[in-house]
Every structure is written in C-alpha cells, then in structure tokens.
C-alpha cells in the first residue's frame, strides 16, 4: 500500500493532466488525498492480515476520495480484502481470485464493461494476466490503459463528450495501471515474487 501511495503521489499531476482533457481535472489530487489517508490509517492502526489491509484501505478511499473514484476503488479493495479472508500469507492464485471478485464488484457498481473507456480496461486484462505472473499483470494493465486512447467513452464524465473523448487516455485506466504496477513492485520487493 505504501508503494501504491508513493506511485499515486508521484503521478498525481500526470493523472490530473489526463483528466483535464476529457474530465474535470481532479483525478490526481483526489487519488493522492485518498492514499495519503490510507497510509495514515495503516500506520496508526496496522491490521494483522493482507485481507484486513485491503478492507481498511478501501474504507479510507470511500471516506476521502469523493467523485466516482472513491466508491469504485474503495469497492475494489474492500471486496478483494473480504475475499482474502483471515490468511496471513496470500498466494498469487488466491490474490488473483480476490482481485477478480473486486473487479466484478466494480463493474457491477459502475454499470460498465471493458471497452467503455474506464478503469476496467486496465483491471480486467491485469487480473487475467495475474494468473501467469505479476510482471504479466503489470504489462497487461499498461497495455489496457494505452488501449483506451482511441475509445469513445460510454461511462463516467468523459462520456458527456461523446466522440470528442476519443484520442485521450482514460485517467481511471491509467491510475488502475499504476496500482497494478505498484502491486507488482511490492511483490518483487517481497522476495519470492509470490506474496503481495
């Protein structure tokens, strides 16, 4: 989570720039506020299990981010955390299942699907590739985010632009790719490459 917070902090301006082209120029600052709160909550009351870390982080995002990103990312992490349960060790396979459930919850909440130019365009391929390796998941998420450039947005604020939303990379898919990359980096730092 700290790796994620660092990544979000580093990329906040970039995310806001992307958002100003087809949205309302606040995605970076909102995500930064959310993950700053996540970091503080984890430091003040560190949970015992990876599942509990994700649930706590998700709740913090819902309480601090606002916009669509708060409920969507909050739901992603909360659902995944609940799926992980009480285990103190988490295998890549188990994490894949948990994230798959989280991504499904996001799709249901937002009423979106892959191809709508949203965070799902990065998350869905990433979860699929996570079955192979963390590195593959990172690559799939990045490709997924890039693939949103020519798409016409059908959900979220960019959808109000209709055809004019094409030609811009989706900020939500971009921040999702950041999160997956941070996860992969944390897994690599963890040594085995098999624990998040």
């Amino acid at each position, binding site marked *: 989570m700290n790796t994620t917070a660092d990544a979000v902090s580093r990329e906040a301006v970039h995310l806001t720039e992307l958002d100003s082209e*087809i949205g*309302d120029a606040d995605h970076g600052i909102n995500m930064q506020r959310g993950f700053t709160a996540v970091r503080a909550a984890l430091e003040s009351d560190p949970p015992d299990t990876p599942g509990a870390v994700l649930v706590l982080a998700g709740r913090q995002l819902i309480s601090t981010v*606002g916009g669509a990103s708060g409920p969507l990312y909050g739901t992603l992490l909360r659902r995944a955390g609940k799926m992980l349960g009480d285990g103190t060790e988490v295998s890549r396979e188990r994490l894949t299942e948990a994230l798959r459930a989280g991504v499904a919850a996001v799709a249901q909440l937002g009423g979106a699907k892959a191809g709508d130019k949203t965070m799902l365009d990065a998350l869905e391929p990433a979860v699929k590739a996570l079955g192979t390796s963390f590195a593959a998941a990172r690559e799939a998420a990045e490709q997924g985010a890039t693939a949103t450039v020519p798409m016409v947005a059908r959900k979220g*604020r960019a*959808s109000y632009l209709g055809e004019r939303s094409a030609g811009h990379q989706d900020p939500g898919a971009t921040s999702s790719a950041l999160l997956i990359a941070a996860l992969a980096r944390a897994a690599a730092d963890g040594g085995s490459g098999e624990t998040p």
Partner: protein
Amino acid sequence: MKMLINVPETVVADGLRGLAAAHPELRVDVENRVVVRADAPVAGKVALVSGGGSGHEPLHAGFVGPGMLSGACPGEVFTSPVPDQMVRAAAAVDSGAGVLFVVKNYTGDVLNFDMAAELAEDEGIQIAKVLVNDDVAVTDSLYTAGRRGTGATLFVEKIAGAAAEEGAPLERVESIAREVNARSRSFGVALTAVTTPAKGSPTFDLPAGELELGIGIHGEPGRERRAMMTSREIADFTVDAVLEDLKPSSPVLLLVNGMGATPLLELYGFNAEVHRVLGERGVPVARTLVGNHVTSLDMAGCSVSICAMDEDLLRLWDAPVRTPALRWGR
C-alpha cells in the same frame, strides 16, 4: 492565473468559514463539510439534503434555509462529496419524517449518494432520492452515463423544498421533485474555459474567437465548438436546443444562469434575447430568474433552463424562501 485564495488545499474550508461568518442562521461544520439550517431538525418536516462538488456556488450551501434545502454537503472542487458527509447531514436534519436526497446525475454523485442512502437507512433514517438529469446537451442512451444534472437542480430544490415546508409527507415531496425534473430541460454555453485552484490553468483550450456549446458545470468541454456568436445567436441556439426536447404546453419557469464570470449586464441582455425567442416560438414565460446560481468557478458563459409549470408548481415556486442566495416572500 491570479486567485483570491491562500492555498488550493484549503479553498473549500476557507469558503465555508466565510459562509458561516456571514450567515448565523446556518450551522456550518467546516471540518466535516456539512451545512444545515440552524433550526434543524424541524419537527414533523421532511428534510431535503443535496450536495455535489464545490465550485458551483451558491449551489448548494447557498440554498439552505426555510423553504428550500435543510442541509448541503460540499465536496472538494468539482468532486462529489463522500458518503460520510451525506449521512452526517441526514442525521442532523432528520426529524423522523424522512430525508430526500437531491442528486445531480454525475457518476460520482450517484455512487456516493447511493452508498450514503444505504448507510443512513442502517441508522434508521428513511431516505428517498431524486435524480436530476436535465441537460439536453448530453445524449441520453444506454451507452452514456445519461444526461447531466445542471440548472434544474435549483428548480427541484426550491419547489420540493416548498412542499416540504408546507408539511407534505416524504412520498409527496419525492414525487413533486421527480415531476419538476421531468418537466425541466437545460443547455449551457462556455465563452471561456474554467480554471480550478488545483490545476491553476484553464482545463481546456478555448481560443479567443470561439465558444463551446453544450458544456457541463465541471469544466468539462462540451460537444461542439463554433466561432463566437452574438447574444442573439446564442439565445436562438440554446432555446432551440431546449425546445427540441421539451414542447411546453403551459407557461414556463425560466432560469437564465451565469456560469460565474459573466456580468449581470450581459446576462440581462441575454435574458431579453431568450424572452424574444421564447415569444417567437409561442412559449409564454410565467417567472424568470436571472443570475449566477449554478456556476462553474470562473467560467464565462451562460445556461438556459426551463420548466413547464402548472398552477400548483407555480404556487410552490412563489412560496416564501429564505436562504443566503435565494429569498423572497417574507
């Protein structure tokens, strides 16, 4: 870009402190970003709570008071408030008669208010919701997020607020709110792009000789760009865009709204043109409100909202209201 601020991070809190200083008839919780009328909860009265991103002032906190909203939740600039704020506001204003959430159709507002409704109901507060989606600039289809909620939010808050003040039960207040939304349409035009405090430069590039048609209230670009037009031409375009979708068979309520940086002199001149077009199209105007009511920070431009009225709705519109930004009748 020069702004009358300290730092971008405290813009919302600073504004709320100033609102509190000017309006002792409001209870302003700066830390938790909740504004309620000071006499809340009012025994037996249905409460109305609305909210959305900051930057649209006076919407929504400026419309808190007798005859309109019971409470408002200002989010960060152009960002939906979070569920915690809405639950806190609902708890502060609920007298037991229930709370109506007035929600503008933006993905973030909808998701956060949905979560808040669940949490508030867990606390035993009866919640109803109305979704405002009046903006004809957005194609409403299965393949978009649907029409945005813009100027008609004011109509819904005023008219449903008057019904609640009269003692109507939650179900009735909710159905009036839905009725007002169903009878309302809006269309907006930007002459300049908006500059948010966090970004510090215009959110999109709009050259001097051009205007943007079909904009929303969050600095997002519109659907079309043209060479700059006269007030008369803009009135023709916007009114026709609205009337293409709504054919009123009764006198209308008209809001000629400024987006924040267009002076009243220009807005009144534009209002004259809007009245001219409506007259030419055979649409009588029952009431007109002109001013900066649903704004987009420092954006220059305007929007036109109309609502097809009936006698009861007109009576509720005329009912007394006493809020920082809208007051008449007492």
